[in-house]
C-alpha cells in the first residue's frame, strides 16, 4: 500500500517540515526497586499469588506514576485471572493498541489498563506480538467488557484476539480492507462508494499535484 495522503501529499502528510525528525522510543529494561507508592505492594502480592511470575512477566516498568507489567502473550489470561481474583483488579478499562513498525518481531502492542475499585489502584498490562503472527489471547472470558474494545483493536490494528466470541469489525465497514491505525496505512486517499456511485479520493478529483 502506498503511503499517499490527501491532496497529493506524499509521505506522512506532514506539512510543517519537521516530520522527518524521528526518535526511537527507548524504554527497554525493568525499573529498579523500590517502585514507590503501592506499586511494590502490587508486585509483591502478584509474586506471592502467582508462582510463575518470573517467567510470565518479562518487565516491570514504573514511569510517570504508572505501573506497567509486560506480560508474555501466552500467559496473559493466567495473569489477568490472578489479578482479578487475588489482587482484586475487578475492572479492565479496555484495550489500546500501538503499532511500532521498527520493532521487528513485536510490532503490535496491546495495553490493558486495569482498575481495582476495592483498593483504588491502577495497573497496566502490556502484551506484544508480531505483524506476521498477530495473535493475542482474548481477555473476554476474564473481563467481559473487553468484547467491544478487542473488536475495535482488531479493526484498527489487525490484532487477532484468540478466543473472542465474535471478532468482527466494529467501527469500519465489514468489507473494509486494511487496518487504519497501523503506521503504514495512509491518512485519507480512500475512494468512497455509496449506492453504486464512486466518489474518488480527494487527491484524484482534480490535479492538485
Amino acid at each position, binding site marked *: 500500500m502506498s503511503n499517499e495522503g490527501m491532496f497529493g501529499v506524499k509521505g506522512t502528510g506532514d506539512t510543517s517540515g519537521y516530520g522527518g525528525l524521528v526518535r526511537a522510543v527507548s524504554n527497554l529494561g525493568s525499573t529498579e526497586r523500590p517502585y514507590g507508592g503501592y506499586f511494590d505492594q502490587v508486585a509483591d502480592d502478584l509474586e506471592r499469588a502467582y508462582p510463575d511470575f518470573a517467567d510470565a512477566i518479562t518487565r516491570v516498568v514504573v514511569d510517570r506514576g504508572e505501573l506497567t507489567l509486560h506480560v508474555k502473550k501466552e500467559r496473559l489470561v493466567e495473569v489477568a485471572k490472578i489479578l482479578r481474583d487475588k489482587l482484586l483488579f475487578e475492572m479492565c478499562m*479496555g484495550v489500546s493498541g500501538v503499532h511500532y513498525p521498527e520493532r521487528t518481531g513485536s510490532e503490535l502492542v496491546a495495553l490493558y489498563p486495569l482498575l481495582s475499585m476495592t483498593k483504588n489502584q491502577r495497573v497496566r498490562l502490556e502484551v506484544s506480538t508480531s505483524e506476521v503472527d498477530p495473535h493475542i489471547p482474548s481477555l473476554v472470558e476474564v473481563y467481559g467488557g473487553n468484547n467491544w474494545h478487542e473488536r475495535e483493536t482488531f479493526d484498527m490494528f489487525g490484532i487477532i484476539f484468540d478466543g473472542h466470541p465474535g471478532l468482527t469489525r466494529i467501527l469500519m465497514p465489514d468489507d473494509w480492507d486494511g487496518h487504519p491505525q497501523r503506521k503504514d496505512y495512509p491518512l485519507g486517499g480512500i475512494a468512497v462508494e455509496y449506492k453504486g456511485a464512486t466518489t474518488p479520493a480527494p487527491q484524484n478529483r482534480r490535479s492538485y499535484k
Partner: protein
Amino acid sequence: MTTFDPYAATRETTEGTVYSVTGGDWDSLVSEIGESKEERIIVNMGPQHPSTHGVLRLVLELEGETVTEVRPGIGYLHTGIEKNMEYRNWTQGTTFATRMDYLAPIFNETAYCLAIEKLLGITNDIPERASIIRVMMMELNRISSHMVALGTGALELGAMGPMFFAFREREVVLDAFEAITGLRMNMAYVRPGGVQQDLPTGMVARLRDLVVELRKNFKDNEKLLVGNTIWMKRTEGIGYLDLAGCTTLGITGPVLRSTGLPWDLRKMQPYCGYENYEFDVITADTCDVYGRFLIRMAELEQSLRIIEQALDKLDATEGQPVMVADKKIAWPAQLALGADGLGNSLDHIREIMGSSMESLIHHFKLVTEGFHVPAGQAYAAVESPRGELAAHIVSDGGTKPYRVHFREPSFNNLQSTSAMSEGGMVADIIGAVASIDPVMGGVDR
C-alpha cells in the same frame, strides 16, 4: 441473475421474508406479518431511528413484543479522530478531541491535556487558576450534558415537556461557554499547560447569576418528573443492571452509581484539584432507569455547589496566570480583545515583529512545529457525565502524538444494552439506552 432492489417492499431471503418499511400504511404491514407462521421477528431499529440517541443501530430479535436478543451496531459516525491526531501537533489535538463526545467537549479536552501534562511532567506546575477554570467549565459542561440526557431521554419515552425545560437550561450554559471561549461547543478551550485564555471581565458575576437562575429552573423538571406516575411506570425496574454486571462490563458513571457504589473519580482519584471542593457523590440502589434519572437530577445540584466554590476561588485568584509559566510549552497567544473582538495583544505583536527576532523565531517554531513531549506513555482519566473518560497517549519524543487512544465511556457502556434489555419489552429498550446516555460521536470517534 436477479437484481437487488433496496426499495422493494418485500423480498425473500434464506432467513425468511424481509419487509422494508419506508412510510406507508402501517396496518397493512402488521396484518401481513400477522399472517406469517413464525412468531420470531427480527427488527432493524436505527441507525436513523429518532429514539436511538443518534446513529445507533439496534438489531432486535422479538418474540411478539418480548425482546430475545439485542445486537447493537455502531460505527456510523466513525471519523478517525485518533488517526487524525497523529498527523497534527499536541496542541492541535485538542480541536480533534473536543469533537468526540460533542455533549461533553471540555471533558475530552481535559482528559487529553492531563495525559500530555503527565508525559511532560508538568502536572504540578499547572497554575491554580487554570485548574479552577477547568473544574468550573467541566461542571458547567456536566450540567449541559445531563440536560440533554434528561431532555432527550424523556422525549424518547414520549414526554415532550421536560425537553423544553432542559434545553432552556442547556442554552444558558452554552451562552456562558460562548462568552468565555467564543464557541458554544467544540471549543478547544483547555490546552496542554492550562486554558486558552482567562475569563472575560465580569464573567464571574454573570456566572453567579447563572447559578441562581439554574437552581431555580431545575425545579421545573423536578416537579414534572420526580414521582410522576407515568414516568415511574416507564422507568422503574427497567434496564436492570447490578453491580456484578457493571464490574464485568467495565461500566462506570451514573449506571454504576445506580447500583449503590459511590465510585466517582473526582473523589477517589482527584485531578484538577477536586479534593479542594465539597460535594457529595450521588447514588441510588435501584439499578434501574429511574435510579439513574434521579442520580443525574441530583448531580446537577452538586455541580452547582462545585461551581459556586470555584467562583469564590476565581475571585481570590483574579489576575493570576492561566497557562504554565514554561514558555517552551505555553502557546504564545497573549490574547487581548481588539476592536474586532479578538486578536493577539498588540504589545506582543510589536515585540515579536519589531524588536526581538528570537521571540519571533520562538513563536514561529512553537506554532508550526509545536513542543516536544518526552517519549513514553501515560493514562489520565476524568469523571465525565457518562463515566470514566480516559486518554491513553504514547509519545516518541516528537511534536506529534505517536498514538492517542480514548477510553470512551459511551463506547464501553453501550455494551450493556443487551444485558439491560433482553427479556424485556421492545418499548423498554428505549428507556434503557436513554439511561446509558451514549453519545455516538464519542462511541465511534
